C-alpha cells in the first residue's frame, strides 16, 4: 500500500462522516467562491478591451441632471476621441412594476450607438431597419428571449419619470459580451414627445483612440466644460459602473465579512472532523508507531488526510458556485449588476487552495497531539 492510497482510504473510511464533512465544507466554500467571483468581476477585472476604451461623460452634479446635446460635437472635436453617442435613461414600465419586468431603456442615436459600443453585434439589415424607424427599438438578445419578443413586435413602455408613453416596435436584436438587459430606442421619440427635454440628454458614451488615452481624454473633456453652467464629470466605463455598485452600500466590507465567516466556519468543521477521526484511531496510531512510523510521518499522514478532504470539498463547492452565479445573474433586481460576473478557473483554484490550507491548519493540533502520544497509553486506549 502506498502512502497516497493509505491517505485516501483513511480519508473515506467512515463514509458517512466523510460525506457530511465534504458537504459541509463544500457549501461553505461554494459561498466563498461566489463571493470571490463577484469581487473579481467588480473590482479586479478590467472588463473587455472595448470597455477599457470607453468613457462616460455625465453632469458633474449628478446623473439626474441633463446635458445639452450640443456638447456632443464639442466632445467629438477633443483629441483622442473617436466616437460619441448620447444616451438618456427613460426608466419606464413594461407591463407592470414587478421586478421581473424591469429592464433599462435608453433613448439614443441609432446612427452612432454601435460605433461606440464596438463589442455589441447586430445584423446590418436590422440596424438599418432601426435607423429608418423613429419609433423602432433594439433589444439585448437575452432580454428579447426572456420576454419572447420577435422582430416586428410592439413593445409599449409607460413613462414614469417622463410624462410620455412609448409605443415601440422591435427592429433588431443585438448581442453583447455580457447580457445588458437593455433596450435602446431613438432619442428623437423622447425629444418630440416631451418638449421640456428637447435638446437635452442624460449622458454621453465616448470611444477613445486607445485604452491608454482614456485618462487624458477624461481630463480634457472636463476641462472643456469647466466654466459652463453645466460642468461635466468624465470617467472610464469601469469607474462609472463601480459608482453604481458603491451605491448599493459598503459592498466590499459585506463581501469580506462573509468570506471571513465562511473560512472560519470551514476551519471549525474540518477541525471537528479531524479531532473525532483521530481520537477514534488512538490505538491505530500507537500501532503505526510500533511498526516504525516516525512522529513526523504520523503527523504528515493525518494532515494529508484533512487536506485531501477539505480540498475535495473546495472543488465541489467551486463547481456548485457556477450554478449559484448563474442563478444570481438571472435574478430580478440584481441581474443587471451581475451581468459581468462569471465563474473562472482562477477562483476555482483559489477555492481548492483555501480548502487545502484550512485542512492543514485545522488538523495540525489534533494530528500533532496524536503523533506525540505515548505508544503504551495508546495501545491501552479504549475508544
Amino acid at each position, binding site marked *: 500500500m502506498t502512502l497516497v492510497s493509505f491517505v485516501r482510504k483513511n480519508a473515506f473510511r467512515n463514509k*458517512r*462522516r466523510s460525506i*457530511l*464533512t465534504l*458537504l*459541509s*465544507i*463544500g*457549501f*461553505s466554500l*461554494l*459561498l466563498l467562491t461566489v463571493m470571490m467571483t463577484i469581487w473579481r468581476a467588480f473590482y479586479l477585472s478590467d472588463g473587455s478591451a472595448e470597455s477599457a476604451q470607453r468613457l462616460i461623460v455625465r453632469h*458633474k*452634479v*449628478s*446623473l*439626474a*441632471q441633463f446635458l445639452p446635446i450640443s456638447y456632443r460635437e464639442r466632445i467629438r472635436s477633443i483629441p483622442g476621441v473617436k466616437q460619441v453617442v448620447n444616451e438618456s435613461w427613460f426608466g419606464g*414600465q413594461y407591463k407592470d*412594476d414587478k*421586478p421581473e419586468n424591469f429592464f433599462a431603456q435608453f433613448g439614443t442615436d441609432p446612427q452612432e450607438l454601435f460605433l461606440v459600443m464596438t463589442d455589441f453585434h447586430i445584423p446590418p439589415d436590422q440596424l438599418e431597419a432601426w435607423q429608418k424607424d423613429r419609433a423602432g427599438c433594439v433589444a439585448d438578445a437575452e432580454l428579447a428571449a426572456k420576454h419572447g419578443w420577435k422582430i416586428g413586435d410592439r413593445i409599449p413602455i*409607460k*413613462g*414614469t*419619470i*417622463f*410624462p410620455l*408613453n412609448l409605443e415601440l416596435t422591435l427592429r433588431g436584436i443585438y448581442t453583447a459580451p455580457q447580457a445588458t438587459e437593455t433596450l435602446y430606442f431613438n432619442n428623437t421619440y423622447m425629444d418630440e414627445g*416631451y418638449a*421640456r*427635454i428637447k435638446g437635452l440628454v442624460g449622458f454621453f458614451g465616448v470611444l477613445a483612440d486607445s485604452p491608454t488615452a482614456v485618462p487624458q481624454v477624461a481630463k480634457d473633456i472636463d476641462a472643456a466644460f469647466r466654466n459652463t*453652467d453645466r460642468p461635466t464629470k468624465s470617467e472610464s466605463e469601469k469607474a462609472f459602473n*463601480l*459608482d*453604481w455598485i*458603491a*451605491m*448599493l*452600500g*459598503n459592498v*466590499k466590507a459585506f463581501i469580506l465579512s*462573509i468570506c471571513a*465567516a*465562511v473560512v*472560519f*466556519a470551514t476551519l*471549525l*468543521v474540518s*477541525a*471537528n*472532523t479531524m*479531532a*473525532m477521526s483521530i481520537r477514534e484511531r488512538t490505538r491505530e496510531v500507537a500501532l503505526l508507531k510500533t511498526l516504525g512510523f516516525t512522529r513526523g510521518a504520523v503527523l504528515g499522514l493525518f494532515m494529508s488526510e484533512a487536506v485531501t478532504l477539505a480540498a475535495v470539498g473546495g472543488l465541489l463547492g467551486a463547481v456548485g458556485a457556477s450554478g*449559484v452565479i448563474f*442563478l*444570481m445573474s438571472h*435574478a430580478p*433586481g*440584481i441581474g443587471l*449588476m451581475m451581468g459581468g460576473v462569471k465563474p473562472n478557473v482562477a477562483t476555482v483554484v483559489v477555492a481548492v487552495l483555501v480548502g487545502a490550507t484550512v485542512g492543514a491548519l485545522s488538523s495540525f493540533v489534533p494530528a500533532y497531539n496524536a503523533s506525540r502520544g505515548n505508544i503504551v497509553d495508546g495501545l491501552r486506549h479504549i475508544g
Partner: protein
Amino acid sequence: MAVPIQYNIRNLTLRKSATVMTSLGIALTVTTAIFIMALLAGLNAAFKGSGDPLNVLVLRKGATAELSAGGVDRDSLPIMKELPGVARDAQGQALVSGEDLLVVVLPRNDGTGETNVTVRFLTPTGIAMRPEVKLVAGRWFTPGQREIVVSKSIHSRFAQANIGDSMWIGKGPWNVVGIFDTGGSAHDSEIWGDINQLSSDFDRPTYNSALIRATDAVSADALKNRVSDDQRLKLNGMLETEYWAKQTSSGSPIKFVGTLVAIIMAIGSCFAAMNTMYAAVAYRSREIATLRVIGFSRSSILTSFVFESVLLSMLGAAVGIVLMLPFNGMTTGTNNPVTFSEAVFSLRMTPNVVISAVVFAIIMGLFGGIAPAWHAARREILVALRD
C-alpha cells in the same frame, strides 16, 4: 418516560471541543442571518414609519416618484388650497407645500467614495407639515438665502455636512446652517433647502410634487380622490404613508443576496451538526443500549438526541445574538431605486429579528439531529451492547 434533560447537558459539557466547534459554526450562520434581517428591519422601519397619515402627496399623473420630470404646475397650488378638507395653520394659511427634489453627489466621510444624496426644497410651511422632524443643532434656513439644513444621518455619514460648511448645489454654494433629526424616517436621508431660492437658480416652471395636509384621516382619504379626479389639475394624489411604504423595495437586492447567503451557510451548518451528532451517537452506542435495557423507549431516545442537537444549535444562536449586539443601531445606507440616491437607515435587532434567528437555529438543529437520533433509536440492543 423521557430521558432527563440533565443527561444531554452533561453530554454536551463532556465533549467540550466538539460542542464548542459545532455551536460556533452555527453561531456564525446565525450572525449572518441576524445581520441581514436587522438590515431589512431597519430599512422597513425607515420607509414604513415615514410620512404622516394626514398628509396627501400630489404627483403628476403617471409619475411614480417625486423625482419624476414635470410635475405640479405653480398655478395648481391655489386650486389645491381651496379644496375642502385642507387643514389651516394658526394664521389661517392653507397647509399646502410645493416641493422640489434634486440629487447631489457627496463624498462619504469614511473614504469609500461618493454617492447620491437627495436635496428637498420646500417652504417653512412644508417643515411645519412634518412635525416629527426636529431641529437638533443650528437653525432652520432663512427663506431667500442660500442655506440648507442636513439630517443627522447625512451629517454623520458625509464630509462637508457640518454647520458652517458649504455644498455646491445647482449654480452655487449653499451654506449648512442646521441639523435636523427625524427619528429614523425616510427624511433621514435628505438635505432641506429653500424652494424659492432654488427656483430662481434653475428657473423651474413647476414643482416636482406638492404636499397637502388634511384636517383628519377621513378627509385625507377624500382629498386624495378629489385631487386625482379634478380635471383642472391632471394630478394624482396618494397618502404620504403609502408612497413611502412602496419604497421598501430598496431592500430587494439585500434581501435576495442575504437570503441566499444565509441559506447556503445554514445547509453547511446542518451537515456539521449532523456530523457531530453522528459521532455523539456512535461514541455512546453502548450507553444508548443500556438506556434501552433500563426501559427507555425508542421514542424517548429519539427525542433525547434531537433535543441535544437543538440544544447545541440554541447555544450557537445565543452566541450569535451576543456577537451581533454591538452592531445594533449602526447606521448604513443603500441605493433607493426610486430616487437613485442613498437611503440611510440603521440596523435594528427587533424582537422579531431575534426570535426569527432562534427559530432559524432550531430548524438547523432539528435537521442536523433527526437522522443521527433516528439511527440511535433504531439500533439493536444486543448488537450495540456487544460493540
